[in-house]
């Protein structure tokens, strides 16, 4: 089980808010911390993990929780 440092709830938000918010959030976090991102927008669920990887962070998991709801866990590099 991973320790979640912070949670970012982006449910109900349309693109590009989830993408932009999560990108800004990880910038403020410290190395080794884990961010949990909640999204219900399909495009962001696919794009946030890609963006995180391209930024060099580790995507621990992308889990689909029910209809159009995803939980993304990212470990800050």
């Amino acid at each position, binding site marked *: 089980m991973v320790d979640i440092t912070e949670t970012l709830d982006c*449910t*109900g*938000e*349309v*693109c*590009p808010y989830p*993408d*932009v918010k999560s*990108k*800004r959030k990880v910038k403020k976090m410290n190395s080794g911390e884990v961010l949990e991102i909640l999204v*219900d*927008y*399909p*495009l962001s669920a*696919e*794009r946030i993990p890609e*963006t995180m990887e391209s930024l060099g962070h580790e995507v621990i998991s992308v889990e*689909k929780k*029910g*209809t*159009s*709801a995803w939980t993304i866990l990212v470990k800050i590099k």
Partner: protein
Amino acid sequence: MDFWYALVAGLIIGAIFGFILQRGRFCMNSAFRDIILLKEFKLAKAVAVSLVVLMVGFAIFALSGVIGLTPKPFKPWSAIVGGLVFGVGMVLAAGCASGTTYRVGEGMMGSFVAALGLTAGALWTGFGILDTAKDILQSVTVGTKLTLFGELSALTPWFMLIVGIVGIVLMLVFWSLPTIRRKVKAKEPLIKFENFKESTFKKGYPWWVTGILIGLILTAGYIVSKGVVGITGGWMDISLWFTSTDSVMWAGFIIIGLIFGSFISALISGEFKFRVPKEGFTLVKQFLGGLLMGFGAVTAMGCNITNILGGVPQLSIHSIITGACIMFGAWIAAFFLFSMWKKDK
């Protein structure tokens, strides 16, 4: 056009189009805006791929005499002002005309509100209070059917074919070759076929698949309807059906089919859910964005689909300038909206 033909063909083309839009998350708002906002190019690449496919597709059918080309007359002010307003509007509405429509099928209430705004804006500009503004902007016309290579002529399809093929070759060299090389080096299979069903119905499509499919379905749409597929006209068509004795025709059935196709696609992949933005102000913003898009689309004689995916493949100067202004408008809006938003967070 015969009613039943419009009904069946419109619904079928619309439904397939909607399905692809939802799977590919194909939205020009995201495509253009994210070039500067997120430095993300996948959807922009999908737009580029669909453009070259459409160029070759339209050219082949024009050369064989199946379709006639219909580039728009070049009206500089209508293209520039309409395009810019449309671009700003789509960022506020969080979706272009087609993006907004397919998201209605996903159950996003914000997009439904934006679609209402789009319809109202289009009707006011077409027949109502903004009618005069549109007429003034459209009063200047340069040439009759001006394309990138002079007036429309028998040679135009050949130019389209050449530009399209050159585009395809360039994309293969610059975008596909690096990936193919990497995969061959890593001894990965080029295309994974084992979970065909899963990737067709459950997952989002890669950008190049989306681009090719959009190109093919809109080519089919052009042949079936004998003209470009549009979104804004469709919403106007539906609203006129409520308010007048006109019956819904081709353009309206495209919209109904599109929403249905997107709904089915979202349902199969478990992505359908009624979603309302948390802040009420977002809805106001999306409605305003819709209004601006409606004004822009009617002024520029077409939304992003009609101009960018209908006119640009025909090398129409009017559509190319409108398209560029839509992109520029989106960048202006994204810059102000998100850089201001950044400060208060």
